[in-house]
């Protein structure tokens, strides 16, 4: 069966391991604790003072040092292995340059095509309605086309402050730091619309700094990239974002 997105499949593996271990540990601690709380209550005339001799037990204390030690070493080592896999973008990945700015994203495709997704802000006299605030209006927000089933390597930087690029279905987060280029990669297998959010606080409109990925079959993506689709995003939205575009492109170069 094909997974929805990568490297989310790897993340799910480690998530499940953690969840199981966590539930077991919680039970191992909480069940005896609750039992003692009920069983060893103060009872006048019967149980007025606790056992003064019960001050420690070397064997037990060693046990609950060594077993947790083994568990965390296992988790860290397994996490190490998974992380190494997660960080390696596949060879055939499509390279996407992403420049973050306050407040939005500029995506640059290998053939030079540019898509901008900038925050839809409220103004003194107009607040957007909830569905508008996070909608794709073709002016401020354009769809970011992504081919289904193709790994995408993202090269990230920022034009001003630190932002963070989070692709929700793929479960990857990577900061966009001014003056540096960082990378991450993801792959989404099922066509549809998906969220990108900014995850590093970046000022006033941090919460509206999102982008919508439109994942489409590979052929359709290629037609879009060549500008053959009606909704090509190439011409539209020029007015509002032309400046940002120009500035952002400066930085990418």
């Amino acid at each position, binding site marked *: 069966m094909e997974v929805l997105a990568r490297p989310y499949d790897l993340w799910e593996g480690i998530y499940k391991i953690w969840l199981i271990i966590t539930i077991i540990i919680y039970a191992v601690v909480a069940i005896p604790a609750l039992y003692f709380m009920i069983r060893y209550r103060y009872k006048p005339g019967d149980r007025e003072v606790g056992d003064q001799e019960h001050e420690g037990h070397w064997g037990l204390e060693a046990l609950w040092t060594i077993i947790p030690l083994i568990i965390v070493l296992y988790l860290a080592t397994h996490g190490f292995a998974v992380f190494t896999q997660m960080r390696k973008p596949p060879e055939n990945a499509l390279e996407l340059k992403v420049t973050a700015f306050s407040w939005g994203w500029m995506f640059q495709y290998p053939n030079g095509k540019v898509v901008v997704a900038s925050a839809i802000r409220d103004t003194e006299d107009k607040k957007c309605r909830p569905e508008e605030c996070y909608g794709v209006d073709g002016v401020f927000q354009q769809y970011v086309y992504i081919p289904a089933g193709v790994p995408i390597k993202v090269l990230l930087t920022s034009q001003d402050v630190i932002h963070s690029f989070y692709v929700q279905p793929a479960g990857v987060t990577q900061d966009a730091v001014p*003056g540096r280029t960082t990378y991450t990669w993801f792959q989404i297998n099922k066509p549809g619309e998906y969220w990108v959010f900014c995850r590093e606080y970046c000022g006033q409109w941090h919460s509206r700094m999102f982008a919508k990925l439109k994942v489409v079959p590979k052929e359709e993506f290629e037609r879009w990239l060549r500008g053959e689709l009606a909704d090509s995003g190439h011409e539209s939205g020029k007015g509002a974002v032309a400046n940002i575009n120009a500035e952002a492109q400066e930085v990418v170069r």
Partner: protein
Amino acid sequence: MREAVHVEKPWFSASIWEWIFTTDHKKIGIMYGVTSTLFFILAGLMALGMRLELFSPGAQYLKPETYNYFLTVHGTVILLWWAIGVWASFANFLIPLMIGARDVAFPRLNALGYWMFFAASVIALITLFPGNQIMTMWTGYPPLAAKEGVGFAGTTALFVFIWHLTGFASIAGAVNFITTVIRMRQPGIGFFNLNLFIHGVIAANVIQLLGVPSVAGAVTMLFLDTYLNTSFFDPTKGGDPLLYQNLFWFYSHPAVYVMVLPAFGIISEIVSAFARKPIFGYKSMVLAIWAIAVVGFTVWTHHMFVSGIPDWVKILMSYTTLLIAVPTGIKIFNWVATLYRAAIVYRTPMLYALGAILMFLIGGLTGIPLGLPAFDIAVHDSYFVVGHFHYVLGMAVTLSAFGGFFYWWPKVTGRMYSETLGKTSFWLVLIGSNLLYFPQLIIGLMGMPRRYYDYPAIPEWVTLHQIQTYGAFILAFGLFIAIVALIKGALTGEKAGPNPWNSNSLEWRIPSPPPPHNFDRPPKVEENYCPHKYRK
């Protein structure tokens, strides 16, 4: 010149003048407590404002810059005034009593420390006036924090001064308490029969002494970058924003142990007193506290797992981060073992302490995956993190602080609080907190980023945000009842004896409230003295 420790009257009959010029550790402790609690309430009210805003998607009542201001104050104040500052209150009042001393080693420095803290409080209040808001978040990352103005940082200078002044108070307190405990113990009280609360506080203070200079340097450079055009952190002029993060977290990760180690100490005091039994595994408790304090300095980059640092550093600090779970686990197991063959008396402080243990366990278990880069990559800066640290701070630390208030209230005021009100407050706080914090974990796993003023109208997200807001108000009501219980107790409660909980610790061997000089004669401790024992 007046003697530094000159005290004539018990604390409750002091005049305003005496409060201002006092060097008495008990009065200073009470002043810290009152200041911390008032600022805790301020930060809590701002959080309620944020929760109302987040009740539905779209802009509701607040502007984004107001939300960001509330969040910055909520974070900064609740950490520096409450999770760190409240322990200065407990430490001041209790340490001299627990080691049989008449005051701390440097009473004047102690007073100076409090007044620095007070000055920081004034600055925090100045941010309430229009034009002075800070929107840096409590972390103040540049380049954002170096850009003044409404869209970005607000007034950076005030943020920097808050760190400087609270940092000064912390260092003054640390020097003082460490010296006091080393030099002023009664004969017969040594490293392995000190109160666990003192071990917690002193370990925390050692961290302060070593760590605060790092963050003070970081915010000083931030100040210079903002106002004098230096470029420590400005990449366009050759600086590096990640330098700030390293310096900041070198202190601010260990700082979470400054918040939680004294809380562990208080839990130990309360649990053994109400279990009427010595604490289980005292020695391993002490070693665990100190191990956490030391290893805590080697894990800071787990806050930077997605910032662009080299992968090998992430792996290294992933191991060290997870190692801290071991001594932490030891403490939890020892508390549970203390309940075995105990005679548990269920009074309000005990409920708070047991609640703190079971909730801290959730905080700890949700912290482990954050130490794994492979897991963290999906939840970094999400609500999962917000849920995790609220379980640790909002529950373990806050429940311990309130447990401590109820536990030592009879000692401090000489009067008992109302048990009914106390227990009611506990259950409200526990239920409200879980309704507030558990959905944060779930919505975080679904991807909701933190520090968001607004969010898309995804139906599950809306529901989870609404549950949080209901929980927040239940919690706030519970805390309100707790404060009413305490104040009412202090004013009209029954008179309390010197040792209402049958504890063997020294502070319970003097009258309640303690006389001006604590001990008329130096208290002699019995051979094999152990503070965590049952005493008739």
